[in-house]
């Protein structure tokens, strides 16, 4: 074993170091430094070996910061390459705060995937929550501020559920090891942990934070959120809940729900967000199937989806950057002004729609193949119909997006577009190339999967179905496109429910409790304090008139007697002698008769 094989440097290390020193760097060279952590991460992850590294003691617990195995390795390799592409895409941004947030976010994602125990996972999970919120806040628009708060609260809810699950799990099992739960014997703590992962994976109905937050993020931030945020949650689900049948149902709902909303949404980034939810649903179905090939399919799809979703978000971000507009209804005919973006958008959509020889196809076909074989909780053919329907709707959504964005005349005239930075184009090109390479040479990804892939990827049947679906989707769109024109309003989603819950807590609990506390304070002030003042006045009155009065009266009596005594002093001897004789007689009588 050589030095590289035996040693381990956590990929997150350089991200954190650079994030800490970046605010203090001056001059223009600091942007070049941004490529060092991703470059190092690619090197480190490609040379990483399976093992457990960086065990530290913290408050009596053993934290495992570096667990490299057949499940975490593909994800960290994926993250390493994506961190390079995302850094390239955001190279032109001169706001250091955005880069710092991005660096911390990427570091936390690496940390979460490499966590070997729940405590480490929790710490990095929180890190992702906070840093990803900043990716929204740093857009610095009014809506972004409010949306970021909602986003963060939702993800913090996920953290609290995770914390509760961890502590309960430890109480029951005595262990903090981040490992698989018994899918056929789930305990309450397992459900809490699953709920935490489900929130971050944007499982319906816990998804609205993502579909609201992503469109409000900064342009590079949205790409990061789609890449690192959701994938970390899906990784965690894969780690703990493979074969959980509930996930099949949840995944099918996600796929359909996301696809339907993608068809009717009008914000170009929100459409991608819903497509992300839908695709996430297909992956969740794959995780839920108790099958090695399905798991391989889910992980392959995670790989592929990362690249084409990032590509689509980069493309939409570029459109927003160039036009300063994000509503589909106000955009159009951009194919001549942004031809490269248009082509790459089509690339991304082809990958999303699992067209053969594009990246989505191998993963989707593996999952669909395995879906046919299951019997619980949904029968295979029915599940296949649901997933197929979702795929067609995703297709519709994707075709609608590209059609109205690039090939239809817009109702509004776009003036001169802001030219795109070269780095944005390069980044999109890299992502597009990956989409193509993964689609044509899936073996590049297969070697990183946990299990060897059985069967051939490109069979006649699969290719036929693979081309039939998109063709059907395009035909459907041709017939339905008058109904799918962009609108001015969005379909209501669960974010209204979340806002309602927040307002209910505010108006139903916090404000009344504050009011009650104020009343209690007033009661204290008016009742107790006044009673206290009244008692004080009574006491003061008694003190002055009663006790003091008695004392003063005694003094007054003594003074009266003194004044009387002075009047008796006449100065005449006969008066003094007479008084003395009277006094002597009185004393004698007293002694005699007593």
């Amino acid at each position, binding site marked *: 074993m050589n030095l590289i094989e035996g040693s381990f440097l956590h990929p997150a290390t350089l991200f954190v170091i650079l994030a800490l020193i970046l605010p203090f760097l001056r001059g223009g060279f600091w942007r070049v430094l941004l490529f060092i952590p991703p470059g190092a991460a690619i090197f480190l992850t490609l040379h990483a070996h399976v093992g457990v590294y960086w065990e530290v003691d913290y408050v009596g617990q053993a934290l495992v910061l570096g667990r490299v195995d057949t499940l975490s390795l593909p994800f960290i390799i994926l993250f390493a390459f994506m961190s390079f592409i995302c850094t390239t895409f955001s190279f032109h941004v001169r706001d250091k705060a955005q880069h710092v947030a991005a660096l911390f976010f990427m570091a936390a994602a690496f940390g979460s995937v490499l966590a070997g125990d729940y405590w480490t996972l929790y710490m990095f999970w*929180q890190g992702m929550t906070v840093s990803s919120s900043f990716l929204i*806040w740093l857009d610095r628009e009014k809506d972004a*501020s409010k949306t970021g708060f909602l986003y963060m*609260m939702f993800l*913090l809810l996920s953290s609290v559920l995770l*914390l509760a699950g961890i502590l309960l799990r*430890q109480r029951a099992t005595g262990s903090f090891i981040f490992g698989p739960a018994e899918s056929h014997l789930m305990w309450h703590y397992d459900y809490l942990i699953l709920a935490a992962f489900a929130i971050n994976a944007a499982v319906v109905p816990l998804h609205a934070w993502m579909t609201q937050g992503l469109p409000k993020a900064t342009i590079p931030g949205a790409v990061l959120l789609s890449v690192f945020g959701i994938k970390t949650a899906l990784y965690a689900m894969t780690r703990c809940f493979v074969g959980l049948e509930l996930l099949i149902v949840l995944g099918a709902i996600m796929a359909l729900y996301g696809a339907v909303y993608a068809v009717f949404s009008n914000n170009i980034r929100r459409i991608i967000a819903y497509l992300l939810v839908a695709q996430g649903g297909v992956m969740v179905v794959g995780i839920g199937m108790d099958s090695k090939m399905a798991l391989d399919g889910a992980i392959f799809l995670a790989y592929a989806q990362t690249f084409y979703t990032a590509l689509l978000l980069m493309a939409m971000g570029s459109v927003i950057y160039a036009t300063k507009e994000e509503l589909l209804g106000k955009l159009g005919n951009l194919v001549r002004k942004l031809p490269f973006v248009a082509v790459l958008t089509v690339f991304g959509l082809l990958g999303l729609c699992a067209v053969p020889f594009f990246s989505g196809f191998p993963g989707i076909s593996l999952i669909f193949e395995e879906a046919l074989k299951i019997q619980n909780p949904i029968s295979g053919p029915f599940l296949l119909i649901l997933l197929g329907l979702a795929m067609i709707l995703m297709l519709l959504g994707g075709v609608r997006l590209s059609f109205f964005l690039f090939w239809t005349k817009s109702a509004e005239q776009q003036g001169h577009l802001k030219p795109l930075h070269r780095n944005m184009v390069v980044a999109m090109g890299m992502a597009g190339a990956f989409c193509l390479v993964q689609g044509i040479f899936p073996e590049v990804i297969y070697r990183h999967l946990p299990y060897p892939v059985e069967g051939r990827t490109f069979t006649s049947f699969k290719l036929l179905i693979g081309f039939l679906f998109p063709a059907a989707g395009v035909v459907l769109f041709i017939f339905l496109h008058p109904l799918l024109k962009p609108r001015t309003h969005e379909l209501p989603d669960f974010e209204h429910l979340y806002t309602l819950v927040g307002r209910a807590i505010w108006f139903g609990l916090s404000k009344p*409790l504050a009011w009650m506390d104020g009343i209690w304070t007033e009661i204290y002030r008016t009742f107790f304090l006044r009673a206290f003042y009244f008692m004080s006045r009574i006491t003061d009155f008694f003190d002055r008139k009663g006790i003091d009065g008695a004392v003063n009266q005694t003094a007054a009596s003594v003074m009266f007697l003194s004044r009387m005594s002075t009047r008796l002093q006449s100065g005449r001897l006969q008066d003094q002698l007479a008084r003395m004789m009277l006094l002597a007689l009185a004393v004698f009588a007293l002694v005699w008769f007593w």
Partner: protein
Amino acid sequence: MLEAHFPILTCLILLPLLGCLGVLFLKSPLTVRCWALGVSLAEMLTGLFLLQFKMGTSDFQFIESAQWVSAWGVQYFLGVDGISVFMVALTLLMFPFCIICSWTSILTRVKEFYICLFILISALIGVFSALDLFLFYLFWEAVLIPTYLLISLWGGRERDLAALKFILYTLAGSALLLVAVIAFRMEGGSFSIPNLTAHAYPVQFQRWMFLIMALAFAVKVPLFPFHTWLPAAYEQAPVAGSILLSAVMAKMGAYGFLRLGLPLAPEAAQFFAPLMIGMSVCSILYGGFLAFAQSNLKKIIAYSSLGHMGFIILGIFLFNLNGAQGALIQMVNHGITTGALFAVAGILHRRSQSYEISGNLGLGRYVPALMGLWGFFAFAGFAFPGTNNFVGEFLILAGAFEKNLWLGAVAIPGALLAAAYMLRPTQKMAWGEPSTATKWRDMSVREWGCVLPMAFLVLYLGLAPTFCLKVMNPSLKHLLEAFGPRTAVTLSMDNHFSANLTIENGLNNNSERGGGQ
């Protein structure tokens, strides 16, 4: 017990009082401030002698003992163990911190202000190091006057009411504490806390005494529903007053439970534990909801203090090591974090002349360092991993779940509430429009010097708390072991004029029979 070769604790108590004398001869406010800072730093340096504290033992150390009022059995008896040494250290840390925070905010009666501060610090160190119950009570009461003056003379617009409420509330509790002090003297035969702790008391006696002491300590902490003095006092007090109130004085109540309530009345503590836990959980949730509804920064911090102190008292009454460790370390961490938040609020107030959120909007762009520090301490406030509060809350929650599943489940929403009430103002302050900070200057050197050590401690105690745990563990284990079976004494009255002592064994027997036959 380990006797001190050098009366370090007496020095720590006397040095601020000597500092008062020095202040009397100074004229210009700047000289007074420099003198005060010098005294506080000297106090901190003197406190470094406490680094000789021996780990691995639960014995009291740095013992100083002398007869005082021998007719009553009152001794001048000082010492620290693994519990009180942290409280003394926290007080020493807050001393120069308060002085730097008040540097430009106290412009009238400067001498008198620092005299009050010195006396307060002296009394606080006395409370935490006293091992004689009478002396403890003396220092406990001595804290009240300077605090009252700090609020009523240098406080906000409604300072008089706030000061009055504060002193009436705490005096009411303290009066009952005196009853307990005398009762323990009569029953235990001594004022010495170690001797009293070694003595066993009848269960009925313990229950009454615990109730009396708990009332006094619950007011001091404060715990729901004895908290209504808190928002007014914290809001109206000057920054230094708010810092000391929240960071140190609130810990007096929790310390009282640890030093007196639990060791002197263990059976009663166990008997009343459900009540104390109920009050703690109410404080956590109630404080959280109230903080969420506030628009004044000081009130937000004040109510958050109510919630955090709820966690601390919860940790104490779990009677397990995780809970006790979490409580004690959270006492230190909460002091640092809340003190820092008040300090930053004070810095903001100097620029905006307002503690309202609406008066401090849109700071992120114009004063990024100041906003960043507020955000940093706000994150520490809701126990973000890597910050100091995370360690305490994690241990307390672990202890809560260890004790009872539902207890942990009820306490855990407090963590989410904390995030909500800290993030809401932070978000508005960072990005709110229109910005009120367009003409502000960012942090000055003095302000950095004031807040940066706190930031360092937040990170250090968050990432490397093991040293603190090693120091406190023996004393906490000893405290919890003392909850094991003890020999209780019951009095058996044979006739009207004599009593025979009957020794009963074990807690279980004693709890069935009560305090006497």
